[in-house]
């Protein structure tokens, strides 16, 4: 197991290296002068542009700049935001916990709903419950989360005045964003759980369990579900990563402070150090989540370790 984890950790190193190169190169890929683009909305003199170039060390060779970017990043310094003149890391870590909180809440909701629907649909295959829930799931996948968010605001905030429409912090502020973000993931989890359950219910060990005279509930929960969940774990991980980035839209709708909203505002404000910093943290979070999922997968399914 330790060998598997170390091999997996080692495989992450080049990916992280690639991510830092990609994020750093963004500045070089901008058509034209990046400093002029960043300052396009301000009245600037050539001296100010020169000062900005010096501040961003843009006159140094590429690899010197990249080395400095990584070195500073390792020391928690991702530069200074152009708009607010504050350290990028400070801006990011002020709001990052709120994004994680939202993504976790959405994942919990999506898992509970998706698993329940998927299991019920599989147990009643081809019934109206099955067909109906899978149609709802396909609709759920097709629905834009930001639009669902607005419809929830319309119903629960503006019409019934039950939940706050904007802001962050406490539980009432979390309910609607988590539902809007999590329903699409619930639909995907439901579909996968259903197909995975159907496969398992047809296996011989389930037939054996039934033949032994075990209760239906014991067969489903103890024997079938345990095995059906293995492929679903990967989807949980992938969905968590998708939910993290889905916050880009949901935080914007609800005016919630978070990394998603921060990155959108940074792009709209052409605040490049902040864009680079937030994209880097998003990507690193994604890498870490995938790593954790792979390790959990290997713990749950020993066959993975031997491959």
């Amino acid at each position: 197991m330790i060998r598997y984890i170390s091999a997996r950790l080692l495989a992450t190193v080049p990916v992280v290296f690639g991510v830092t190169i990609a994020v750093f190169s963004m500045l070089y890929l901008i058509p034209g002068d990046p400093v002029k683009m960043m300052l396009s909305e301000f009245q600037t003199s050539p001296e100010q542009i020169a000062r900005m170039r010096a501040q961003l060390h843009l006159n140094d060779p590429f690899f010197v700049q990249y080395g400095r970017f990584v070195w500073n990043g390792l020391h928690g310094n991702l530069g200074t935001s152009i708009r607010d003149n504050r350290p990028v890391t400070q801006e990011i870590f002020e709001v990052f916990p709120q994004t994680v909180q939202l993504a976790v809440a959405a994942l919990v909701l999506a898992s509970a709903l998706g698993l329940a629907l998927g299991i019920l649909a599989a147990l009643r295959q081809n019934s109206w419950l099955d067909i109906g829930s899978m149609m709802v799931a396909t609709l759920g996948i097709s629905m834009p989360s930001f639009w669902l968010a607005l419809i929830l605001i319309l119903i629960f905030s503006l019409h019934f005045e039950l939940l706050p429409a904007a802001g962050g912090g406490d539980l009432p502020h979390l309910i609607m964003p988590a539902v809007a973000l999590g329903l699409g993931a619930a639909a995907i989890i439901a579909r996968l759980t259903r197909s995975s359950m159907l496969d398992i219910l047809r296996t011989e060990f389930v037939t054996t369990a039934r033949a032994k005279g075990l209760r239906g509930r014991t067969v489903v929960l103890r024997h079938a579900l345990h095995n059906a969940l293995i492929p679903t774990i990967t989807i949980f991980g992938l969905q968590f990563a998708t939910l993290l980035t889905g916050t880009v839209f949901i935080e914007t709708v609800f005016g919630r402070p978070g990394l998603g909203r921060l990155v959108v505002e940074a792009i709209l404000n052409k605040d490049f150090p902040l864009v680079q910093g937030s994209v880097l943290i998003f990507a690193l979070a994604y890498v870490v989540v995938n790593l954790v999922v792979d390790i959990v997968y290997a713990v749950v399914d020993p066959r993975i370790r031997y491959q």
Partner: protein
Amino acid sequence: MAETLASRAAPAAGAHARTRWQMLAPRMRRHKGLMVGLVIVVFLALIAVFRDVVAPQNPIKIDVTAALQSPEPAHWFGTDQYGRDVFSRVVHGASISLTVGVIAVAIATTVGTMVGLVAGYYGRAVDALIMRIIDFMLAFPGILLALGIVSVLGPSLQNLMIAVGIAGVPFYARLVRSTVLVAKEQLYIEAARVIGVPIPVILVRHLLPNIVAPIIIAATLGMGITILQAAGLSFVGLGSQPPTPEWGRMITEGRDYLRDAWWISTFPGVAIMITVFGVNLLGDGLRDVLDPRLRI
């Protein structure tokens, strides 16, 4: 000469396609989901083509005297804060959203297929290099990659298509590569190689037609995600710019009027949902019919 022999060595393309199509057509007709999806997509495509007939009112014409009118016979979906007809904007938006979806998926599949073909066929160092780059790209979730590209290129409808398209490339490249790895071991490819058919010809004439089914399935299923991503980026202001009647943009424009004019944001959202629903049904159906092993 080499060409003729290779063509014989490969499954006879024309006849093969006909028999395969004859075999698939009844299965496609029997698949309810596929037919519903196909009807929705064809219906939307017709609306997009004949938008000026379906909705003759100018979708960007401002008329402040008609602002914020609720749905009524003169304006089926009401009017927005500038007095523009929402029905007309939704109908004209169909052509924009479908175009964005088709072009972005075309970019993703074309580039992804080329990269995957080369990586899968050549193997070794070429494959290793290409796949490392693909791994780096996959380290970014699709929407984040698209955000990064938009931030570099600047927000516009054209850049949105490029960004969402490029973000899809690694997915198709991986799919095509893995399919090529299996297909290139087949006897007809070896036969073509032995008689000296040039590699680009082997890739395009012999390998590609035999791996096209998974690409079609993935492209159709990917279209739904692409339309959602593009609408989302326009929604947060990083895609189409006013006054373009793009669905994601229209939803954001109606946000401030949600209490008094719910119709401005609601109808474009319903339009996105129906479109993606239709495309997803079509994709699921094609997968069931063309490659039943992948069914979930």
